[in-house]
């Protein structure tokens, strides 16, 4: 019984720049089942954040369809979309810039309730704020403090409380723990884990940290230059990575374990800018297995090589 909550089809987002078309997101498709977590992994500039924001229409996608509970939200009008936002929320990366410095903790958390008129009575709103603060583990004495008086972990808890205030079904987490110290990072990850169980949340977890996404996500999609190059359940992706980029990425994580022996695959060069991309495999220029005749013939499609394991590579699309 699959219960698909989100179905993204051929999502594209191009930006016009001085040098040409920037393909931030180039034909991305994926689905997520209710209550699961999809990890979107990649390096800076791969389009993972743009994908997340396009799904919420915080950035208007250039083309493509986003079905949320069967409804294509790309076609909704501004007003209808605003109503839809209650169900789809986002947690931002930087807990220092995602909160208005002039609003206290309670003002920040009550804002979504007030704006969407979920509760009208002032007392009910205050009640709900205290309940939310309790849910995310913020002490009640912080209710009237300003964000700049708080540390990163607590600020991120405010961000989570804001997202939860509207009882969303889907939350897009854009690098929610990257700006935090490890000990605080673990606290927030555990909190998000608990909330998922308790509230039956679905997450899209966007990150560059493979260790974190491996721990947190049920399924992982690896992005490179605006496209998904490999997608598989987490376990499978880590034990049996197929795409050359995924393998290089996995081998590059520094592991805090002296017994962890592996061969490092060193990549040449750096991610190129996604402007005016030629019609060839996006990874070809840095790929250590690249065979010009095959790989530069076109953009490789995402092919299912084993159940639920998709790879976009001409050299590894059989099995």
């Amino acid at each position, binding site marked *: 019984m699959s219960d698909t909550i989100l179905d993204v089809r051929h999502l594209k987002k191009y930006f016009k720049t001085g040098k040409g078309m920037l393909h931030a997101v180039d034909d991305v498709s994926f689905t997520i089942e209710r209550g699961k977590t999809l990890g979107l992994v990649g*390096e800076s500039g791969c389009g993972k954040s743009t994908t997340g924001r396009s799904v919420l229409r915080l950035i208007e996608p250039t083309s493509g369809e986003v079905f949320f509970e069967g409804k294509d939200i790309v076609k909704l009008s501004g007003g209808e979309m605003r109503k839809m936002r209650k169900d789809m929320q986002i947690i931002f990366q930087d807990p220092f810039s995602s909160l208005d410095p002039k609003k206290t903790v309670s003002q920040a958390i009550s804002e979504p309730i007030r704006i969407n008129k979920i509760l009208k009575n002032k007392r009910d709103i205050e009640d709900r704020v205290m309940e939310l603060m309790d849910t995310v583990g913020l002490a009640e004495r912080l209710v009237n403090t300003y964000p700049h008086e708080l*540390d990163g972990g607590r600020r991120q808890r405010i961000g989570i409380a804001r997202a939860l205030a509207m009882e969303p079904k889907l939350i897009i987490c854009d690098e929610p723990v990257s700006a935090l110290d490890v*000990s605080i990072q*673990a606290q927030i990850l555990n909190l998000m884990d608990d909330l998922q169980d308790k509230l039956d949340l679905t997450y899209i977890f966007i990150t560059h940290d493979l260790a974190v996404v491996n721990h947190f996500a049920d399924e992982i999609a690896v992005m490179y230059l605006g496209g998904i190059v490999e997608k598989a359940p987490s376990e499978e992706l880590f034990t049996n990575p197929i795409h050359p980029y995924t393998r290089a990425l996995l081998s590059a994580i*520094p592991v805090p374990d002296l017994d962890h022996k592996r061969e490092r695959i*060193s990549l040449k060069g750096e991610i190129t800018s996604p402007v005016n991309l030629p019609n060839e495999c996006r990874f070809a220029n840095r790929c250590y297995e690249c065979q010009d005749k095959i790989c530069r013939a076109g953009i490789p499609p995402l092919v299912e090589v084993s159940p639920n394991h998709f790879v976009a590579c001409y050299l590894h699309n059989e099995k």
Partner: protein
Amino acid sequence: MSEKEITRNEKILDVKNLSVRFETEDGIVRAVNGIDLDLGYHRTLGLVGETGAGKTTTALALLRLVQSPPGVVECDKLEIGGRDIRELSIEHMEQIRGKDISMIFQDPMTALNPVFTVGDQIAESLELHEHLNHEQALERAGDMLEMVGIPRARGKEYPHQFSGGMKQRVVIAIALACNPKLLIADEPTTALDVTIQAQVLELMNDLKTKYDTSMIMITHDLGIVAEVCDEVAVMYAGRIIEKGTLEDVFRETMHPYTEGLFNSLPNIKNRTARLKPIMGLMPDPTNLPPGCAFAPRCNYATEECSKEVPELKAVSQTHKCACCAYEREGFCIERRAKK
């Protein structure tokens, strides 16, 4: 070879009882509270800790770059290459910085001057310290660029024409230009992507051996420590709480905070294992708790812990730990009990 023999037992860095405090309006921020550091030639020390642990302040104090006021630096001994640098004049210190000891900063985007070419910026320190003329210096700058994997010709370009990873390579080239004896790298890869981070770390490892440089690697990432360091010092609230060789700290972890750091990291082998974060928050450096600063967050803490600051005691020849729980009979942290 013989020269190496002689220097083997000597220390490039010897610091005793270093303290740094900042006297601000809101109170005295005790950033570093009496730490001892020493480092042999050709060794790499990893200085590990979270934000506010005092890692960067320590590094700045070693270079005598702490701003004063509000900073006040005190220490009983501060020797680099056997030379006491505490009382050196400003001019003298400037000669030492860059030549004997140099630093790589966290953010390569702001460490370079946007109005000079990359080659000029490398040449500048060569002209200053090695007394080369401009042509010779530019020539050497070209060599340095090639060393860090950038074509010589790109020395004529400006920083904005380089990507983040390339800029960090340039910064490394500048730091290594005068062949310093000690290199302090403050989170050199935090601003970079994983694959680029891997390239830069690899480069630093190669250059370290090639140039016989000792290094202090400041980082919050235990994974990086495992890859580049020989020795580790873990800092918490301005104190070193555990110190030893890489093996000591990773295999024979003693301090509950170090254990907490390891437990906070997702385990790449056992992906579903629930994380065990350290509860609570870093203490406020203007108002440190009495006794062991970690006690309020420590699972093993007893009343004893809040009475006095635990000393850094030797557990083995190389391994030291500052935790009073070990005075209890048969105390052992969970991480080691499992083994």
